[in-house]
């Protein structure tokens, strides 16, 4: 097979050579220039600027490159050396738009909460509890959730802390805290990746899209603003969108680029690291922004939602109002794992208040 490919390659190269004489190499150009115009080093200078590797006695990564090759990141009108282009991309649009994206979404969520308040139950709690999440599911969810928060906060500190935290707490304390953030970020990341992979397989079946999910998107505003309920399975369409777009898609971007940045010992070039950083930062900022919505809905945004994942049980009234199709399935015995049973002491939320 290899022999075949080699032969094929030679044929292609030969065909190319026949069609057009190869351009003289930089060295040949310089030799020629030296005879016609002695002291004119323009070909050598061009070779340097192209950023290719040359000879050096110093062992190491890219030590033969005198200056990084030119590059251009999205939104840039001119080429600059790759390092300079990356710096402008990072310190420019990614910092500006990414920072304001997070700030504005937090402000919008808090504003909405102040305006409309949480989505409350319409009926009083029944006092009968259903098994909503197994201990295994809770463990996986909280492993992913807590590691996500650690990664998010440490990442935001490493990116924006210089502009926000540093002026307040000073150089010494900020550098100590950022070093802690870097180490937490590096060592918590594998836990997050493993949790997410398990979560994907664990909840894949319940997150498969169904026909009735479409109406959720049409009525989502009515739910947020007026607490109107839309028939949903175990997970509603918003949760499914978070699962496919966040847990799967954004995790894939963040994890893949993160692993490249996490293990610099595979001799990745600086260009690869710059690209990986850019993908990592942009995907992570979007991920953090979307997660704020999920965290809001799971804590203060919807009455009773936090307790479901905290204790694993939900009240029948909550299930009936928020996930009516799932509730019907449980009641008709199609989901034996969720059927009532003994409720431990640890599930006190949503009990009727005396």
């Amino acid at each position, binding site marked *: 097979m290899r022999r075949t490919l080699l032969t094929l390659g030679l044929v292609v190269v030969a065909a190319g050579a026949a069609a057009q004489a190869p351009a003289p190499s*930089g*060295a*040949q150009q*310089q*030799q020629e220039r*030296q*005879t016609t115009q*002695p*002291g*004119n*080093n*323009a*070909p*050598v*200078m061009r*070779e*340097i600027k192209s950023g290719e590797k*040359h*000879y*050096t*006695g*110093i062992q*190491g990564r*890219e*030590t*033969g*490159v*005198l*200056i*990084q090759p030119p590059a251009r990141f999205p939104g840039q009108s*001119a080429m*600059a*050396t*790759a*390092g*300079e282009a*990356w*710096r402008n991309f*990072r*310190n420019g649009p990614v910092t500006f738009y990414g920072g304001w994206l997070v700030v504005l979404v937090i402000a919008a969520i808090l504003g909405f909460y102040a305006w409309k308040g949480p989505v409350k139950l319409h009926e009083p709690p029944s006092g009968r509890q259903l098994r909503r999440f197994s201990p295994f599911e809770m463990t996986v969810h909280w492993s992913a959730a807590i590691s996500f928060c650690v990664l998010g906060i440490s990442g935001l500190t*490493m*990116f924006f802390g*210089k502009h926000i935290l*540093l002026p307040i707490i000073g*150089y*010494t304390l*900020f*550098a100590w805290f*950022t*070093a802690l953030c*870097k180490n937490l970020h*590096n060592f918590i990341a594998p836990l997050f990746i493993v949790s997410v992979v398990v979560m994907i397989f664990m909840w894949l079946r319940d997150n498969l899209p169904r026909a009735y999910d479409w109406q959720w998107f049409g009525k989502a505003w009515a739910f947020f603003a007026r607490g109107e309920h839309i028939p949903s399975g175990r997970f509603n369409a918003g949760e499914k969108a978070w699962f496919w777009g966040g847990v799967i898609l954004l995790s894939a971007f963040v994890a893949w680029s993160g692993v490249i940045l*996490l*293990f*610099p*010992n*595979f001799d990745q070039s*600086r260009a690869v*690291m710059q690209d990986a*950083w850019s993908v990592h930062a942009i995907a992570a900022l979007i991920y953090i922004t979307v997660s704020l919505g999920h965290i809001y809905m799971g804590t203060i945004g919807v009455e009773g939602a936090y307790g479901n994942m905290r204790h694993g049980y939900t009240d029948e009234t909550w299930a009936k109002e928020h996930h009516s199709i799932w509730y019907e399935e449980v009641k008709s015995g199609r989901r034996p794992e969720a059927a009532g049973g003994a409720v431990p002491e640890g599930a006190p939320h949503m009990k009727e208040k005396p």
Partner: protein
Amino acid sequence: MARMKFLCDAERCIECNGCVTACKNENEVPWGVNRRRVVTINDGVVGAEKSISVACMHCSDAPCMAVCPVDCFYRTDDGVVLHDKDLCIGCGYCFYACPFGAPQFPQAGAFGLRGKMDKCTFCAGGPEPDRSDAEFRKYGRNRLAEGKLPACAEMCSTKALLGGDGDVIADIYRERVLRRGRGADLWGWSSAYGVKPGAQPPVQQPAPTRGKS
């Protein structure tokens, strides 16, 4: 006040690596770290071979300084870009951003875990008191405080590598070019000290609030 710069004359560099050795010896740089290196273009091709010695160029608008998450870089009154190893977290961003590949990272653990960044200091030490033991241990010799220029340039056998006040070394180089009538390509200066097309000239930086003057 002087504005310190490096200049390498490609017509003169003979790739002896004396500057690399001088730097390592003078600053007692850790194993595996080279603050300076010599790169040869068209190695072994008669009439086309040129060598250039490169280290931190102490840029006017330094990308390393701009991307550092903990802002550990500072510029001295001589225009030398230095950093504080007590603040450095070893993230490697300065290495991604530097056009010249100047920042070096001694490996500090498994899986390529980076130690604190090390780079050319223009033989100007660091934020510790001048010529103190702590300064020497972390940053190497502070020759500027002794009234001397960087060891690499001082040691250069052909005076291809010049280090010193930018105006003075530029004048020396201009005189050479006029005298020999060739080799006017001032390598690296447009990236390190140049003004970008269409941009405003760099504003004079205010005196650093940290570090010594």
